[in-house]
């Protein structure tokens, strides 16, 4: 570890800062999930969750995001051992799986809108779109980040010497995954 990046605690300051950022993100999503739960079942008009949520489709999205997390750790492991061919492949696979998830969310939102559920239709619509939309925005940032790393790798500017950069990207991506694990249970399965 470079002296310039080491804290007095012996940990890398970028990694420490990123864990602190993830901690603050826990509070952001915690408040959004709390708001969703507080207003759950309080909509005066439909569509209601049980009428509109598609569990098989969302289960596929969950599977997709879990597999993207696997691809991310495989990308990091490849970069750490200097196998950049595999590293590039798994970074691209992770980004593509993220894009599949975003495509699914776009389809889901469009479908719900055509079914009559807008942002201001009822309390369910407002809390659902804000919670899942904020998560989707995080996935979008993650996909852009991953594609940036992939392009850097293609240009030969990413190697085992940048393993920590890939690890921090991975921390962000896995956090997005764990947030979805909670959303899938709280919003979709517990109706």
């Amino acid at each position, binding site marked *: *570890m*470079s002296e*310039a*990046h080491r804290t007095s*605690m*012996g*940990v*890398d300051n970028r*990694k*420490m800062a990123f*864990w*602190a950022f*993830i*901690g*603050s993100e*826990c*509070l952001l*999503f*915690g*408040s959004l*999930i*709390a*708001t969703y*739960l*507080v207003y759950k079942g309080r909509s005066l008009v439909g569509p209601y969750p049980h009428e509109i949520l598609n*569990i*098989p489709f969302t*289960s596929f999205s*969950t*599977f997709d995001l*879990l*597999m993207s*997390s*696997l691809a*991310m*750790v*495989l990308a*990091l*492991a490849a970069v*750490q051992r200097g196998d950049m061919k595999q590293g590039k492949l798994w970074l691209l696979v992770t980004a593509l799986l993220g894009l599949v998830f975003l495509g699914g969310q776009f389809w889901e939102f469009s479908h719900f809108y055509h079914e009559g559920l807008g942002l201001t239709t009822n309390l369910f619509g407002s809390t659902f779109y804000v919670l899942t939309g904020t998560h989707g925005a995080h996935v979008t940032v993650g996909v852009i980040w991953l594609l940036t790393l992939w392009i850097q790798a293609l240009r030969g500017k990413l190697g085992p*010497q*940048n*393993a*920590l*950069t890939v*690890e921090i990207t*991975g*921390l962000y991506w*896995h*956090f997005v*995954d*764990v947030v979805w*694990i*909670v959303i*899938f*249970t*709280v919003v979709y*399965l*517990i109706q």
Partner: protein
Amino acid sequence: MSEQTGSHASTATYLRIAAILVMITLIEVGVFYVPTFQAVLVPLLLVLSAVKFALVVMFYMHLKFDNRFFAFLFGGPLLLALVVVISLLLIFYGAVRLRTGV
């Protein structure tokens, strides 16, 4: 500038964790559709979700192998977020109960 990272799990471990995560997701969706589990559905789903959450954080985010200070940086706010969620639910439903008397 070289960047060193901590010791992590093996590829075989990552694949095993992925298989467990997929199995738990299948169980979650399965119990959702089986009427027998309706009585215990909420606690069961919360436990299964917590197991998935812990597996990703421990093995994919390497918290199990990394500096314990990172666990504190993550666990502290996570605990606070949980307290916020539970407190808001208690306050809101407590207020509803007071207003309606039910």
